[in-house]
């Protein structure tokens, strides 16, 4: 079953990779080194990445929200 929440990365992501290391689901990758990409299917919305992000560009959203 999918979680009710998921993480979303904003356009100001600096691709530092801090979120990558704390994701318990391995749902984040930094393909091409431009921006963190979150696999919303894997993401459980725990918020660790958002708490870790030094740029503060990760938001936790309810599924169904944009």
């Amino acid at each position: 079953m999918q979680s009710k929440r998921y993480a979303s990365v904003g356009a100001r992501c600096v691709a530092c990779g801090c979120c990558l290391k704390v994701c318990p689901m391995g749902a984040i990758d930094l393909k091409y080194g431009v921006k963190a990409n979150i696999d919303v299917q894997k993401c459980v919305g725990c918020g660790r990445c958002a708490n870790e992000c030094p740029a503060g560009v990760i938001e936790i959203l309810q599924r169904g929200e944009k």
Partner: protein
Amino acid sequence: MPNTAKAKKHWYDYLWIVTPIYLGLGFFNILFAWIGLVFFFLPLILSACGFGKIYCNLYCDRGRFLDLLGKKLHISMNRKTPKWVSSPVFRYGFLIFFLIMFIQMLFNTYLVFSSAKTLSETVKLFWTFNVPWNWAYNGSAAPWVAQFAFGFYSIMLTSTLIGVIFTVLFKPRSWCVFCPMGTMTQLICRIRAPKGEK
């Protein structure tokens, strides 16, 4: 795969030690500052060769050092980094400022090389304060070699101090948000990425 088990330590997890060693060596002999060129060129080379931001993600000693200060030594207030820090205006503005200061440092080296200026045995902190550092140079290298070392060490020490200040005030790696090397490597990655991924 979920990262449920306790993460295994890798050799690069210990790279934080490079920062205090580098700054420590430069305290005793300024010529060691030349080693810092590795930290300048390696990220750019890795990004240009298609490794993305692997340097920032895994190998950046300063990032790991700031992480250590913030998370293990708990010196960080862990507050949210202000939004303006991640704005393109500030990030690119700081990059331009940093590059101008770098060019000025190279020009100073040239002036000493051409004997138009004498060697200044000082470390310039925050691009403003000249701190005497004469014990770290014993005349064993040409003056221009030492001038470059003093200039480069000034940049490295200043940027580390800014990083530490930001670590204390905000999140441990808030320096990474506007680190000029990170901005440059991200620019290279943007250029290299396929159209839809930019």
